[in-house]
């Protein structure tokens, strides 16, 4: 039979538990509220400025005439070259490490290295790009210099997710292929790569969306903030959306805040689409996995 002391203790334990759950729920709610408030604030500030004219105009000293045409084109150019460079190198590195690397000190160094590189602040990549690509290789403050810098920045992300994709392919597939006389490379090329691709793709989309939002490294390598023309190729001077947004935020005139918010809306719309695509892709392929 429970004494009153035990009853009180039991009540206390129940209260304690409910209070704790309430706190945890509050934390989760707070995080979600922060996201909603952020989206609403930016949306309310900028939605009035989003129009075809805004997308199709060059930057201007007058906030109501300023647009993102050059920045958007610069972003597209930079993303295209970043993808062209980073995806093959990243997948190549992942294939080597996951499938062919002998387990020795060299592999261990490369792996530790990739983990450390993933934690290097992005602005340091900017200094690397400035010295190596802009100065030593003399590429100037061009799209290609920016893309190379960005590629190095997102390479660790691509390698890690590509390895995850390769690891999800069961060894029995490889053994079967080898048993039929295929060489290791043929096995990877024809049997392993295709089923690993969906997971890789998810990681690649996320890595590219990271590159799309990065600002600091491109500021450091000297992407300009005022480009009143269309970038014309890999050697062209350029700016990107986040830099254009930053430039507008840092101006004192009130009208530019609105313009900045409109730029952010376009940027977020593109990023959220990419994220949604990555999540949808992952969901789809997880449901349709063959093993």
């Amino acid at each position: 039979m429970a004494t009153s002391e035990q009853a009180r203790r039991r009540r206390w334990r129940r209260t304690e538990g409910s209070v704790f759950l309430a706190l945890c729920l509050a934390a989760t709610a707070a995080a979600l509220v922060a996201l909603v408030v952020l989206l609403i604030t930016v949306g309310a500030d900028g939605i009035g400025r989003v129009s075809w004219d805004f997308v199709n105009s060059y930057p201007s000293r007058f906030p109501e005439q300023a647009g993102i045409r050059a920045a958007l084109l610069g972003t597209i150019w930079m993303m295209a070259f970043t993808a062209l460079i980073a995806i093959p190198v990243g997948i190549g590195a992942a294939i080597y490490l996951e499938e062919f690397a002998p387990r020795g000190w060299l592999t261990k160094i490369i792996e530790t290295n990739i983990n450390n590189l993933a934690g290097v602040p992005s602005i340091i990549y900017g200094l690397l790009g400035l010295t190596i690509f802009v100065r030593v290789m003399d590429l100037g403050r061009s799209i290609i210099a920016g893309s190379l810098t960005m590629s190095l920045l997102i390479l660790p992300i691509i390698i890690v997710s590509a390895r995850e994709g390769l690891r999800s392919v069961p060894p029995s597939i490889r053994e079967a292929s080898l048993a039929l006389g295929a060489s290791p490379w043929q096995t990877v090329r024809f049997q392993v790569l295709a089923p690993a691709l969906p997971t890789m793709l998810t990681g690649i989309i996320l890595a590219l969306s990271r590159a799309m939002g990065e600002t600091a490294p491109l500021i450091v390598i000297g992407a300009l903030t005022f480009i009143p023309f269309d970038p014309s190729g890999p050697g062209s001077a350029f700016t990107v959306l986040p830099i254009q947004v930053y430039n507008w935020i840092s101006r004192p005139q009130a009208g530019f805040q609105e313009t900045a918010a409109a730029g952010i809306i376009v940027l977020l719309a593109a990023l959220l689409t990419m994220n949604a695509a990555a999540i949808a892709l992952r969901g789809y392929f997880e449901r349709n996995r063959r093993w």
Partner: protein
Amino acid sequence: MPVDAMEAPAPAPAPSWTFAHRSTSARRVREWPIYALLFACAAVSVITTFGIVFTLFEETVRFFEEISIVEFLTGTEWTPLFTNKHFGVLPLLNATLMIALTAMLFAIPLGMGVAIYLSEYAPGRVRAVVKPVLEILAGIPTVVYGYFALTFISPEIVRRLFGSDTPLFNALSAAIAMAIMILPLVSSLSEDAMRSVPNALREGAYGVGANKFEVSTRIVVPAALSGIVAACILAVSRAVGETMIVVVAAGNQPNLSLNPLEGMQTMTAYIVQISLGDTPRGTLEYSTIFAVAVMLFLTTLLLNIFAQWLIGRFREGYE
């Protein structure tokens, strides 16, 4: 997957399966250029590291040929662009650490609350929705957080709480925005750590009459502690290296102060300030950004190594 894959890849376990030394066929010999090419791809990461070390340290050596390392590390004034130059990095270091730690002050309790809720309480459906939604926070460009700090957090929260004479650009607003940004990193990695605590531990505790609160706080959290601590350290490292939020919202004045309501300049913000200006290459002012960058690089490197070591230790615990 997104957050941990993006921000903090854990040390990859040894490949479960590898072709190395398994085949001696003639085709393998003929295919050597392919293997060489693949190896070259993997070597890019090592070359990148050498590139970073070489770039940073070359200019830094030049800097320390003129400025004593003691002045750099102990000086309390940072005015490399003034006529009266001082090269004490403490104001930048102080701002960097203060903003990062203030951000953690918000992000750790909130992140832990989210992680415990998602791992221990939330029904699978809720978790499947909330987790990716929160990870959107990690994917928002930091320049957007800068805008949010400047146009919402500072005027609507900080100035309302601490009086309208608080400067619009202040360290606290930047720290709050940063806390929102790193929250999903803390919660996602902590949640992974908690979920990998074996269920037998939980069941054992329920078996002796513990309730959910007791299981969460006295069994799961302690068991996952090293993973949680590692997540927090990685978050600190992220906060230390974060740039655009502080450039936009923290005020950009080197200021050795412990008052978060003042404007401050972090190491990253200083690098951006010089990059935006027209400081000519080869000058002492130009080499300052590399000295500051070395400081930043070493700080984050130590934090990352420590975090990885913790994760590694934690992994072994349940194998």
